[in-house]
Each structure stands twice: as C-alpha cells, then as structure tokens.
C-alpha cells in the first residue's frame, strides 16, 4: 500500500512504523531526516507546492513499489517551521526480503530530494536564507535513473 502525507504536524514515527510493519512482508527499511543543528540556524521552514508535491511523492512511491515489488511504501514530509533536531521526513519500504526494502528506501529518499517541490529556508540571526541545492544530491538521485 502507498502512504503519502505532507503535513505541518510533527511526524509520529511509531504510528508510521506500525502501518509499515502491518504490510505483508518480512522486512521494513526506514529513513528519518532531521533538521541539522547547523551553526546559527534557529529555525528551518519548509515551503512546498501543494498538489504538485503529493503528486510527485505518489509517483515516486508507485515507482518504488513496481521496481522492487514492495508490499508498501510510505513517504511523510513535514512542512512549515521546525526546530533543529525535529523530524523533516520519514520514508519506509516494506518488502519480502531486506535487499529490496533497503534499496527501495534509499531510492525513495534520494529521488525525493530532486523530484519533489520542497524548498528549505533557514532562519539565522541576520534574517533568513534559502538553502542551495547540493550537487551530491543530484548525483545520488541520478544513480537510480539507469
């Protein structure tokens, strides 16, 4: 089953894990992204493109399910303001065996970073600044396109 959610509410890992483990499979791989405690950043705000975001995440989850024959795929992304240490994103892949679950989990987070319309804005003492994309993220996403 595909579960995709974009919300300003904190991510409830226990509830998401319970749903992922309820799928028919012997393996669940997950990734949790946290707001990094970078120097001087007091708050991180995630902007997104409502409608297009959900569409992009659903397409990614569907691609993962088809490619690794998953029992389930979960993508939960938080938006709005959040503090260092809080969860931004959670992905889970449920499969029969670990190799498919682990690969699909890496695929989901790598491609989410380049394929879904989110933008990070950091609040610092002097005001705010938009986070620049990283070439390493493009490279990580590209390795799944072959």
């Amino acid at each position, binding site marked *: 089953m595909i579960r995709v959610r974009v919300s300003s509410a904190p991510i409830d890992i226990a509830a998401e894990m319970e749903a992922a483990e309820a799928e028919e499979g012997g393996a669940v791989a997950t990734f949790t992204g946290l707001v990094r405690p970078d120097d001087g950043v007091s708050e991180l705000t995630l*902007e997104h493109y409502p409608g297009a975001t959900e569409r992009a995440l659903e397409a990614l989850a569907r691609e993962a399910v088809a490619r690794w024959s998953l029992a389930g795929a979960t993508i939960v992304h938080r938006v709005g303001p959040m503090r260092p240490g809080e969860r931004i994103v959670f992905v889970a892949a449920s499969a029969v065996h670990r190799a498919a679950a682990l690969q699909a989990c890496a695929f989901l987070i790598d491609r989410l970073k380049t394929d879904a*319309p*989110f*933008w990070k804005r950091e609040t610092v003492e002097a005001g705010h600044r*938009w986070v620049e994309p990283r070439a390493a993220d493009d490279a990580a996403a590209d390795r799944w396109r072959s």
Partner: protein
Amino acid sequence: MVYFAWVRERIGVAEEEVSPPAEVATIADLIDWLAARSPSHAAAFADRDRLRAARDQVFVPLDAPLAGAGEIAIFPPVTGG
C-alpha cells in the same frame, strides 16, 4: 502563474493571472516576456540556470511548450528531504 521560494519573494506575489500573446510558445518565452514587463520579474528571472518549472503541476524543462496549460509554476531548484 505560481511562484515559490526566492522567486516568489523577488517577484513579490505568490501567484498572478497573465495573458501572454500568441508568439509566447514555451516556458522560456514566457519568462522572457514576464521579465520585460517588470523589474521585479527581471530580478527574479535574472539567472535562468537557477530556474525550474512545472506545467499543470508536473516538472518540465524550461524549453517545454506552454501547450495551453492552465498553471505554470516557476521556482528555484528543489531542496527537500
């Protein structure tokens, strides 16, 4: 038109209705046309390499045709996850 992140901030609005002339055929043409109409659009669109676009909520390259789209979005490269 819908704008996000620093593109939205530089233009000063999150969305607007526009009616480009018939010779505006692609998203890149639309960006040129908007940039010629106001300094804030010109500032937002100054560096084309840092712009991305979506047509009716699906990512497309800047040279994609408008193809009668109802909603064009212009934004910086994404930074989620």
